[in-house]
């Protein structure tokens, strides 16, 4: 009796901790639009103070999930927990959202518009003004206050939009394709600000199909495809599970011509390239395990090794491979 109680209690505590350490937890969230299933039992745990990449092709259900988190729509089944509590309307003011389909009132002045949007997030006018001033100075756009949005370029308007998203200092920030519409310089400014926000304790969800920014920014990822979550976790861990003990080697030896057949006999050689003039050999090799000791000692005896790198799949490769595997299974 006591044993079961203890087990239950353990579970309870464990569950609570899981909720407390995560800014956002979704449990089997399902959403239908008519006959179309937009999300099918998607469970995610988004840790606090991290940048979480939500990946997936167009139409996978990312935006639906984000809209559920923003309480724009509601799930048919499943629960969403925010900071340890069931998601409620009061949480709206602690979430910041930059949608993919974004814009501003064209005929409205920049300052007025920013104030309005900030007030809708629950800031007072005075507080909003103060913070806007800070951000406008920080991003060097102070003189835009009385300009109308239609006078601004697209990148300029995006800056305003970014400020409005983060102005109320939310605990959770959700960016849907944040860099679309930015030129490289401004994209960098925004990227730095996102990293800054994360370092100041904000949790960030980052939805995109631009993989380079995922590699650069995201600590955790989840891959959503055809309304289902295919994989999730720490990006580094996922990469570990997806690597195939493939190594890239570059060496010089006196007799590269002879070395190559021995290598292809002994190991699983994937590709190779010989430069006979320089006695140089480049090759890619797959080992049966992650233990590279054997080949290293084998090569060290016969040649001078310039490079020996394990090839870790990029997020993009994982993305494509997972989706292809999934489609092949169906």
């Amino acid at each position, binding site marked *: 009796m006591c044993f079961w109680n203890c087990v239950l209690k353990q579970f309870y505590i464990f569950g609570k901790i899981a909720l407390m350490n995560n800014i956002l937890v979704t449990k089997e969230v399902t959403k239908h*639009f*008519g006959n179309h299933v937009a999300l099918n039992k998607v469970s995610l745990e988004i840790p606090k103070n991290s940048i979480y990449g939500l990946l997936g092709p167009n139409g996978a259900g990312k935006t639906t999930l984000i*809209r559920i988190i*923003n*309480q*724009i729509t509601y799930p048919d089944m499943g629960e969403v927990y925010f900071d340890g509590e069931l998601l409620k*309307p009061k949480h*709206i*003011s602690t*979430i910041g*959202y*930059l*949608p993919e*389909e*974004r*814009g*501003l*009132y*064209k*005929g*409205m002045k920049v300052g007025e518009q920013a104030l*309005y*949007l900030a*007030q*809708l*997030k*629950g800031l007072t006018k005075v507080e909003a003004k103060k913070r806007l001033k800070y951000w406008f100075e920080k991003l060097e756009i102070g003189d835009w206050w009385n300009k109308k949005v239609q006078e601004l370029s697209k990148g300029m308007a995006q800056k305003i*939009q970014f400020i*409005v*998203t983060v102005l109320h200092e939310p605990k959770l920030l959700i960016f849907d394709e944040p860099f679309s519409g930015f030129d490289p310089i401004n994209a960098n400014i925004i990227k730095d600000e996102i990293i800054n926000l994360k370092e100041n304790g904000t949790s960030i969800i980052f939805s995109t199909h631009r993989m380079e920014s995922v590699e650069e920014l995201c600590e955790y990822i989840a891959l959503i495809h055809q309304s289902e979550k295919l994989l999730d976790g720490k990006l580094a861990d996922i990469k570990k599970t997806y690597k195939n003990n493939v190594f890239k080697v570059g060496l010089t030896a006196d007799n590269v011509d002879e070395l190559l057949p021995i290598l292809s006999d002994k190991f699983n050689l994937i590709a190779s390239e010989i430069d006979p003039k320089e006695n140089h050999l480049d090759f890619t090799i797959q080992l049966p395990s992650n233990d590279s000791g054997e080949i290293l000692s084998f090569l060290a005896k016969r040649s001078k090794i310039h490079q020996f790198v394990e090839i870790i799949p990029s997020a993009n490769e994982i993305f494509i491979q997972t989706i292809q595997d999934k489609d092949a299974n169906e």
Partner: protein
Amino acid sequence: MNKLPIIIRREYLAKVRNKSFVIMTFLSPILMVGMVVLIAYLTKINDNQKRIIGVFNESDYFSNDFNPTESTSYVQFKDITLKQAKDSTTQMGYYGLLHIPHEDELEKVAEHAYFYTKEAPSTSVLDRLEDVFLDRLRERRLQDMGVSSKEFALMDKKYEINTATFDGEQNLKGINEIKAIIGGGFGYLIMMFIIIYGGFVMRSVIEEKTSRIIEVIISSVKPFELMMGKIIGTSLAGITQFAIWIVSASLLLMVAFAIFDIDPATLSNGADVTGMAGNMAPPVPTPNQTIQAYAQELYKIPWLMLICFFVVYFILGYLIYSSIYAAIGAAVDNETDTQQFIFPVILPLMLAIYVGFFSVFSNPHGPIAVGFSLFPLTSPIVMLMRLPGGIGEGGVPVWELVTSILLLIITFIGIVWLAAKIYRVGILMYGKKPSYKELFKWIKY
């Protein structure tokens, strides 16, 4: 925290500061007053223009029948030929020539009489001439039957029936029509307001969709709040505009009348002519007493009650229609796609106005009037046309009023609920024009 006031404020300011709104607000009274002044001025000119008709009478009849009136005078030709008469008519620039030939009998004279004009003559002139002939012919026919001219004159006396209520109060002719016009004015106001400002609501929704700001906003507030804020904000802007119009138009009118020296009475007479007031004023000069009686009757219209119910019907009716407009705006991507949805919305409004003017005027408590004043999509207009007759005995039965308002409230809740559902889904849908079937599906999302 309640964000509705913030939204209402923005929607109001966005509307009021809009350039075209400002221009419309200040230009319309000038245009309207300009129109009225122009009409009054033209009417005045029109009245001053007299028609002269030449009469070439060769017969023994009609010697004293063509008497000049306000707008027509007659010139008699004598001892010339028909051709000369025609020539001199055109030379003098007269309106036309009436030729009455010499015949033995009146019937034959009438049969061979001709009215020559340069162009096709106006019906009013013809009517007047025909009346003269008809009178004489009738007199002659009766004489043939043995009725003397004296007897005929006696017989021709006009008659109007006296009407009264059971309480013995004198009833006034046409007072029902006057009341219906007053109610109709209120109803018409509601219709105009719905069509103009419902359209504004719709365009404002479309603007939020096309500028893609909508998702940013509804991640902060509920779509329903945004929709209601928009509807209320826009209607407040509308009320501001109406208030400015009424105040400035009346000021301008006064100024204009003072400048152009136009007697406002000209205008009210003009209204009679256009048939707006029907047989409201008898053709004979109205005795002071009658005017007083009408004034009294108007005074007796329960204005306070009328205004109260106007407010009730206005608010409910406007909310119903403008939430439909908001839903339409949410369903489409641009204004050109709205046509197919707007027609069914305007239809009941037009129906209400026309049915109101035709059936409520003639019979304010007939089955059609009752039916349309109960049906929620037409009741705000039709019921207001019936209400000036009072509530209870002799007016709108209390049960009809209660049922009408109840039905309106139920419809209001239902429609706003449905519209909010369509709105909620529609604002996030881009790229395709939905069919009615799809709209129906959205309700279930």
